[in-house]
């Protein structure tokens, strides 16, 4: 009996069915950090291979969206931008929204898109969604650069923009945006493996969510009756704080910002546990 125990201690790891759902395996992810970075590199590099404009596409997309928004929401629908120049108003919203949007959409495809790899090789599955968070952060950085340049131009032209000290909140805002995108993405990736129907819902749902977030309209244009519901959306306070910090318009509400922090934390925990549960049986159900 004692001898048997001794032998058991000697193994490096054990493969078995009933693993602890809370054991997400961050130590494994750390071991595979090189792979994580290589996936990030792959995501960035392959986007502009064999294109003429190359990385310029990272700029073109937000510019075109901004122009579209200016035309449709600004001019046709006549939605106010709280006195902020339209370009800056939409560009700021799109820049931060895109980070969330891309992270969520891409992480939600983790299992369905990588099934061929997952079916052949073991590595901590969490590496893939995490790599999406990072590669999208880099893409955000590029688009953010575009936004900052535009902002500076307007600032020196003396337009109505008031960047302020709360710019220092940017890392926290990004962390929250990435966390929410990852959290929602992890949960939907886990659910779509079994019920493919959800793929359609997610694309649609994210679009709806954008309209429930003050991306194309300022918080001030919402009547008091509905303000509460918009604030309940954890993305609202992030987008508003971002706009407030860089443009000086919008609302920086500490209560709702802390609400977003707590929400993100809980979402990430739930996401990690769901993901962890699914990654083990996924190969058999996909």
């Amino acid at each position: 009996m004692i001898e048997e125990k001794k032998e058991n201690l000697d193994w490096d790891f054990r493969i078995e069915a009933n693993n602890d759902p809370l054991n997400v395996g961050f130590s494994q992810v750390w071991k595979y950090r090189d792979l994580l970075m290589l996936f990030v590199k792959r995501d960035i590099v392959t986007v502009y291979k064999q294109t003429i404009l190359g990385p310029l596409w990272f700029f073109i997309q937000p510019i075109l969206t901004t122009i579209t928004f200016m035309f449709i929401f600004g001019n046709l629908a006549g939605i106010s931008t709280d006195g902020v120049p339209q370009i800056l108003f939409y560009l700021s919203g799109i820049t931060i929204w895109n980070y969330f949007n891309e992270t969520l959409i891409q992480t939600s495809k983790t299992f369905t898109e990588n099934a061929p790899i997952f079916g052949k090789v073991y590595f901590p599955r969490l590496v893939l969604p995490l790599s999406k968070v990072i590669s999208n952060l880099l893409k955000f950085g590029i688009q953010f650069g575009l936004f900052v340049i535009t902002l500076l131009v307007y600032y020196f032209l003396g337009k109505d923009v008031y960047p302020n000290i709360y710019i220092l909140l940017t890392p926290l805002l990004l962390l929250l945006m990435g966390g929410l995108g990852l959290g929602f993405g992890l949960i939907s990736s886990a659910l779509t493996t079994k019920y493919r129907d959800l793929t359609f819902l997610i694309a649609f749902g994210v679009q709806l969510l954008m309209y429930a977030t003050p991306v194309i309209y300022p918080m001030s244009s919402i009547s008091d009756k509905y303000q509460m519901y918009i604030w309940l959306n954890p993305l609202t306070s992030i987008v508003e704080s971002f706009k407030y910090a860089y443009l000086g318009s919008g609302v920086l509400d500490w209560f709702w910002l802390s609400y977003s922090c707590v929400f993100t934390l809980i979402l990430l925990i739930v996401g990690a546990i769901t993901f962890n549960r699914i990654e083990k049986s996924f190969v058999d159900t996909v």
Partner: protein
Amino acid sequence: MRPVIKVENVSKLYRLGEIGTGTISHDINRWWAKMRGKEDPFSQIGSENDRSVNDGSDYAWALKDINFEVAQGDVLGIIGRNGAGKSTLLKILSRVTLPTKGGINVKGRVASLLEVGTGFHPELTGKENIFLNGAILGMTKAEIKRKFDEIVDFAGIAKYVDTPVKRYSSGMYVRLAFAVAAHLDSEILIMDEVLAVGDAEFQKKCLGKMGDVSRNEGRTILFVSHNMASVKSLCTQGIVLHNGQYAFEGTTHDAVNFYQQNSNLNQFVNFSLDSEDILGNANIKILEFKVEALTGDYISVSSGVAFECTFYNEKVGINLDVTFELVNSEEVKIFHHAALISKDRDSKRGLYKVKGHLSPYILNAGQYKFNIIFGENQRYVLFKESEVVGFDIANESMGSNTETLPGVLRPNISYEIDFQK
């Protein structure tokens, strides 16, 4: 040597049919059973994985109660027919999927090669793909850097390292993929039939590399194949799986032998004269029919085939003949050959034994079946039976080529080469 892998009661349940419809109801059922502290209601019905029998169950055990150990430095071949559970076992060992029951203890780093070039991205260059693929297989960046030149060298693609792999020829692609895999530093290497790729020359190089590594560095290798020739040339130990169950463990030699004799084919039939289901009729009763290697322990291209039929004859005073028909797995008749038992109408009541043999290097590797026909005066059929016994001829490498060659025959031809300028 100490064991580095210990497989304990590993079982794997698979759901048959289409997944999607009915999954919600099954999930709810399962959850309800769990709430009441009962066992998964779907894991009980699954029966032995014999796919020819449909027992109506939606679940089947792809593996059932597998136990074995692998010692350090062993090169273990896992053999079995299609669907025997080989690939499932490899998938569990490589942690791609988990067992439904049981567990496996592992000592050391495991690299698995269920496929070469996993994660290769067509747009990335050879160099970028070496790093990506290496990292996917579990190497760190520093390790890959250290082995980079060696890998490029091994694959022989030095000129193309900065070209996207989509521009590679399929041969180059495979060589590169394999080169990365061959330079893995893990203590345990798990391989599916990846050796079935690439040209013969390169295969030989890979086999050589694998063999070197296990001999010199004490690496443990698990290798799945139904190619007996490569199992024999690479492995030291073998286990045989049959319908998801563990059937045999021993030296490669014995395992290959066991596999041939206990495959779905009956290499041997034996009846007692008074048994009810005896093969035969009022005229002829077959007591025994066996197929063996003419030389050596198991049937291969070079062993030749000996067959022997013992039967009881009731017809007295006729010209009795026995015809042996050999059919291959594509239902092609290889031959139809008769043995005259009695020529002058002098057949007797009693036991006859007919032996025949095929010399080495006639038949190609593959599966064969014997049909047997008993005739009277070479005109009337006394008794006939199809597929009485079956057997497998193992392949043997032809030069550097370990693959089964095409064709029905596998003759030994000596060539004379003449050259004139």
